[in-house]
């Protein structure tokens, strides 16, 4: 009951005109960003963070805007999957498998509205899951001391690689690179400068927003330049939507699918290191194995094959918020970016967030519900408008993306130095993506590096310089065990699963969920 009254308070916070308008704007922008190939949820949120920040929005308002973008992008990714067989972002990859065949049969409108409905079901119930699971996790997290937190951070890095890359060495490299970047600047505990090479601009450290926008948004611009891909992937002739409402029988047929996929997707989202991509993959494969083991209808335009991955990826998007809010350790790329939002607003997520900033947490959760209904309302009748977005050619879109990124970063610091660092990160992101090095661990490293080091040093200082204190409590040992298992398992089975997931990967698919 306690939870429900907190939720009611949350609605009281979220239901102001300003916040509702922000949620609506976020949903709209998010859907567009999700729909456009090359601009996934991570990029979308990354570009908007500095803007929300420089516009002087409060913590709750910024979070409402940006999580609406996050949810909206999860909805939007399916549009180009279904109409063009090009996933708008990585989690929407699986939707191509049955969505595009449905569109070819002239049922594009039905596929779009059915997937909109499935997205709604997934996200709606996952938000309820978040409400009930997060406070339980907080209770466990309150038992954590510095040593356990250090182990938890290590766990986040070690498990993240399993899903985000085919090569564990490369994800370890990425994590170390990110942590190393976080070390630049004045050491918070002793006040000595580290890795600054006498450059005054570096004394404050590298702003993680600069790193995020450079790695995600600018590297995308370079990818498009390299491929000389300037023409729109759609023209008016290709987009035929047709009847918009799915028949009742189709909804009835897919209801059990949606429920099963929501549960699976949510669980996949909560797991550290997994994200929406894994959620949609698991939901689709499980559904296929269950209802169509011989492969008669799946892959040929089965509505259940559209409902399953969409419910799965939206449920996973909700699930991924659980560890991010309760522990302060994000489980996926986009939640890492959302963590950056919180940190730049001077809010430290984690167990104390629920007791110290209940207005932020519950306002955010209420906003998720509001965003969900808005997205359902926006997506089913207005899907025609969003399909028009696909006709914007990247040669116009990409310069706009680049310039908006510059505007946002310049707005924060007003320094040309930061802009040049951002270009550097953009080039680095481009090279690393070529080398198949995942970018998410780098972001996570720059975000969590200092907190991780502080916990390490605090734990050891408390125990008078005894390093064994790190594996002294059962809780810490448990976390380390999970971390090691999470690192080793992908070495054995990971390549196979990833190969399946990426079998249909499109060059233009976004880099992460």
């Amino acid at each position, binding site marked *: 009951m306690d939870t429900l009254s907190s939720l009611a308070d949350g609605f009281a916070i979220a239901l102001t005109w300003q916040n509702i308008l922000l949620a609506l704007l976020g949903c709209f922008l998010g859907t567009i960003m999700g729909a456009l190939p090359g601009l996934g949820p991570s990029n979308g949120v990354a570009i908007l963070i500095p803007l929300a920040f420089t516009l002087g929005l409060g913590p709750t308002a910024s979070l409402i805007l940006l999580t609406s973008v996050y949810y909206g992008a999860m909805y939007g990714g399916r549009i180009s999957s279904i109409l063009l067989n090009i996933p708008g972002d990585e989690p929407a990859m699986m939707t191509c498998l049955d969505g595009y065949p449905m569109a070819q049969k002239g049922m594009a409108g039905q596929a779009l509205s059915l997937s909109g409905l499935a997205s709604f079901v997934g996200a709606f119930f996952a938000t309820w899951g978040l409400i009930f699971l997060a406070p339980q996790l907080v209770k466990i997290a309150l038992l954590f001391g510095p040593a356990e937190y250090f182990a938890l951070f290590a766990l986040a890095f070690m498990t993240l690689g399993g899903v985000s890359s085919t090569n564990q060495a490369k994800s370890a490299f990425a994590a170390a690179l990110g942590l190393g970047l976080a070390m630049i600047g004045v050491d918070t505990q002793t006040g000595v400068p580290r890795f600054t090479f006498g450059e005054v601009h570096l004394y404050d450290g590298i702003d993680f927003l600069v790193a995020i926008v450079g790695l995600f948004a600018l590297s995308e611009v370079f990818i498009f330049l390299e491929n000389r891909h300037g023409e729109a992937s759609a023209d008016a002739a290709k987009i035929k939507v047709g009847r918009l409402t799915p028949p009742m029988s189709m909804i009835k047929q897919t209801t059990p699918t949606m429920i099963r996929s929501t549960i699976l997707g949510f669980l996949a989202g909560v797991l550290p290191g997994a994200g929406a991509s894994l959620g949609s993959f698991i939901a689709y494969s499980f559904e296929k194995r269950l209802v169509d083991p011989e492969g008669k209808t799946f892959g040929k335009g089965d509505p259940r094959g559209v409902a399953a991955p969409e419910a799965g990826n939206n449920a996973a998007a909700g699930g991924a918020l659980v560890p991010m809010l309760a522990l302060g350790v994000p489980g996926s790329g986009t939640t890492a970016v959302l963590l950056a939002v919180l940190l730049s607003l001077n809010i430290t997520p984690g167990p104390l967030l629920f007791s110290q900033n209940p207005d932020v947490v519950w306002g955010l959760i209420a906003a998720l519900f509001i965003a969900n209904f808005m997205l359902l309302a926006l997506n089913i009748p207005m899907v025609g408008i969003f399909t028009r977005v696909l006709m914007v050619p990247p040669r116009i879109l990409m310069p706009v993306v680049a310039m908006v990124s510059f505007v946002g970063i310049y707005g924060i610091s007003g320094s040309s130095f930061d802009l040049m660092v951002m270009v550097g990160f953009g080039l680095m992101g481009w090279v690393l993506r070529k080398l198949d090095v995942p970018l998410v661990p780098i972001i996570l490293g720059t975000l969590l590096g200092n907190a991780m080091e502080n916990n390490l040093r605090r734990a050891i200082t408390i125990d*008078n310089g005894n390093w064994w204190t790190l594996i002294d409590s059962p809780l810490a040992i448990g976390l380390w065990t999970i971390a090691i298992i999470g690192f080793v398992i992908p070495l054995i089975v990971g390549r196979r699963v990833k190969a399946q997931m990426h079998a249909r990967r499109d060059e233009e698919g976004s880099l992460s969920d």
Partner: protein
Amino acid sequence: MTDRIFGVVGLLLAIGFALAALTIQESFLSDAVGPKAFPLIIATILGLSSAVIALRPDESPQWPALGLLVEVFAAAVVMVMYAQFLPVAGFIIATFFASAYLTWRLGSGLVGSLMTGVGTSLGIYIVFHLVLGLSLARGPLGF
């Protein structure tokens, strides 16, 4: 082959990082761990993973032809110049040139590039500066 080079570069980076960590000045008031230990741990992980990458390389990616590589670096140079000229020339002028260049390289025609440049720079100026009140770089002309 790409991964072997990448691994060696990573290894050099790790060694450089470790050396830089060793030169960090210890403060006379330090905690039990000090400012060097964690960077050294990171350097170790960086070095080990680079070594593994070099010893067990993946297949090489498709590198673009030289012309396209030049294309990417030229765009980066334009962006760096944009960063330099932004405070000097002001937002509208600098953004016009940068976005016109990018859209031209992505395949717009001459007129299209100029139009996109003007549209992007004025559009962002109107939305972010006039409507939302974000402060953008001011040039000598006041915009």
